[in-house]
């Protein structure tokens, strides 16, 4: 058995999601190769070579992989696929964009966002917004899988894999990268933060989110949001936590002015400790919270910041 992991990276370094995917791969067993596709991505390749358990790093460094365009990147992965029994990637927006395209090109099914490895062909994943966990078995020769980061620990980083270049460029000319607007933040990433404080519709506007920013600064936390807060334009889309946003499972999750809809819970209910601050004592969020504070957030949050 041999596994190819498509890495999530920013060209200079790796994202934590790559390390959790490698842990999932090592639970399947067999040799693990990591593919770094990108434009000027040598730094990421060097970082990948240090991950324990990795045999080989394969680098496809070409302008046609800028922005990890699905068509080009999937064609690249498909061109390497004959050597592998499993093709895996983190369940990030890149992984979700590229791997199903790889699977269909190989005429096999795909498994999205797995939370457990039962055996080399059997996996666990959530369905119905996390209200059920299905154990699913694949009959395909190549298994194509995306992995939920919060369900696996980080791989160690004391390895020394070899690095080899994949020189053939797969530029299909179907799409071009036209730019990106990246949310600027010096804060820890939402999906890897130990503490997350999220705001909902109760925050009322964009300016009030600075109250949460202040608390986050003191706690070294990341700031998240409900869909309602994103839809209302209080904060950008990359902060949405939930079934259709990001999945987080920090040690501490503080929900402020969030009612606790099923779709929001799906993104945070595996957090170790959940705190809810809401003025409505009947808000469903209190049913999953370890500690609830029934209070106006405009009183409680400044108090919290003061007390830290």
């Amino acid at each position, binding site marked *: 058995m041999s596994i190819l992991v498509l890495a999530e990276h920013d060209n200079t370094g790796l994202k934590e999601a790559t390390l959790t995917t490698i842990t999932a791969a090592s639970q399947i067993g067999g040799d693990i190769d990591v593919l770094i596709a990108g434009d000027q991505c040598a730094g990421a390749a060097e970082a990948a070579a240090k991950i324990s358990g990795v045999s080989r790093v394969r680098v496809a460094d070409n302008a046609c992989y800028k922005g990890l365009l699905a068509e080009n990147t999937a064609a690249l992965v498909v061109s390497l696929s004959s050597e592998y029994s499993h093709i895996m990637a983190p369940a990030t927006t890149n992984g979700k964009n590229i791997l199903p395209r790889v699977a269909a090109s190989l005429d*096999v099914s795909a498994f999205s966002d797995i939370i457990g490895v039962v055996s080399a062909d059997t996996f666990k994943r959530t369905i119905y917004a996390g*209200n059920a*966990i299905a154990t699913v078995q694949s009959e395909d020769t190549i298994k194509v899988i995306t992995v939920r980061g919060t369900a696996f620990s980080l791989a160690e980083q004391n390895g020394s894999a070899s690095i080899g270049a994949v020189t053939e460029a797969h530029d299909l000319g179907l799409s071009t990268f036209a730019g990106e607007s990246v949310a600027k933040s010096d804060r820890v990433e939402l999906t890897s933060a130990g503490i997350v404080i999220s705001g909902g519709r109760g925050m009322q506007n964009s300016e009030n989110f600075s109250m949460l920013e202040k608390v986050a600064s003191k706690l070294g936390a990341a700031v998240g949001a409900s869909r309602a807060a994103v839809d209302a334009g209080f904060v950008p889309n990359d902060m949405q936590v939930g079934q259709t946003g990001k999945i987080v499972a920090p040690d501490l999750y503080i929900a402020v002015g969030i009612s606790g809809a*099923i779709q929001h819970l799906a993104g945070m209910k595996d957090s170790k400790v959940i705190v809810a601050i809401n003025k409505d004592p009947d808000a469903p969020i209190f049913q*999953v919270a370890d500690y609830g504070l029934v209070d106006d957030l405009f009183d409680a949050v400044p108090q*919290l910041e003061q007390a830290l």
Partner: protein
Amino acid sequence: MKILVMVKRVTDPNVIIRVNAENTSVDLNNVKMAINPFCEIAMEEAVRLKEAGIATEIIAMSIGPAQAQDQLRTALAMGADRGLLVESEESLEPLTVAKLTAKVVEEEQIGLVLLGKQSIDTDNSQTGQMLSAILGWSQGTFASKVDIVDNTLNLTREVDSGLQSLTLTLPSVVTCDLRLNEPRFASLPNIMKAKRKPLVIKPAADYGVDLTSKIKTLKVESPNTRQSGEIVGSVAALLDKLKTEKGVI
């Protein structure tokens, strides 16, 4: 340009779904069903493209049981011109759905396929990407803005780091995200009109696609449920608990 919109019948997003007693599936007895919310967004976008003079015809398609006609009627009331139900009692996996859809795309000479980014029941987020691979077309997933000028599609995507812009060649497959638009409610006259719009039903077996599943579901379980904890009286009490009882700050 003809647009095909994929409309899936799923459980209503407000219903909490439970696992059945046998641990083989979820219990869908008497559960309210609805059009997948992301498909509603896809449908709205198609109607706007037709209103803008870019689309000439909108075909709404669903693959599922006879009851999925309800969701197709909703799509017709929103503005689709025709409906197609590819009937299958078994729920089919994304690869099979994509293969059936590819047949329809070829038959109907479609220029753009709009889908939801994700089914809220199976949470796969695969079908659009698979369809695009089978057709060899460009692919725009998680779209929050669709702009067609001449023969190119300028697309904005919601990605983990923020927003990404792509230029795609047409024909293309686009999957729609939450912020693309706000779907309209079908008006009563349009609901009445939709009853007379053509809706063709064809068995899935007629398309020459292998319908057998390569995925076996061995078991379906309930997740660990969280117990609700305690209500604390003050911020000070809260901080004390977090520090001393849990040691998380």
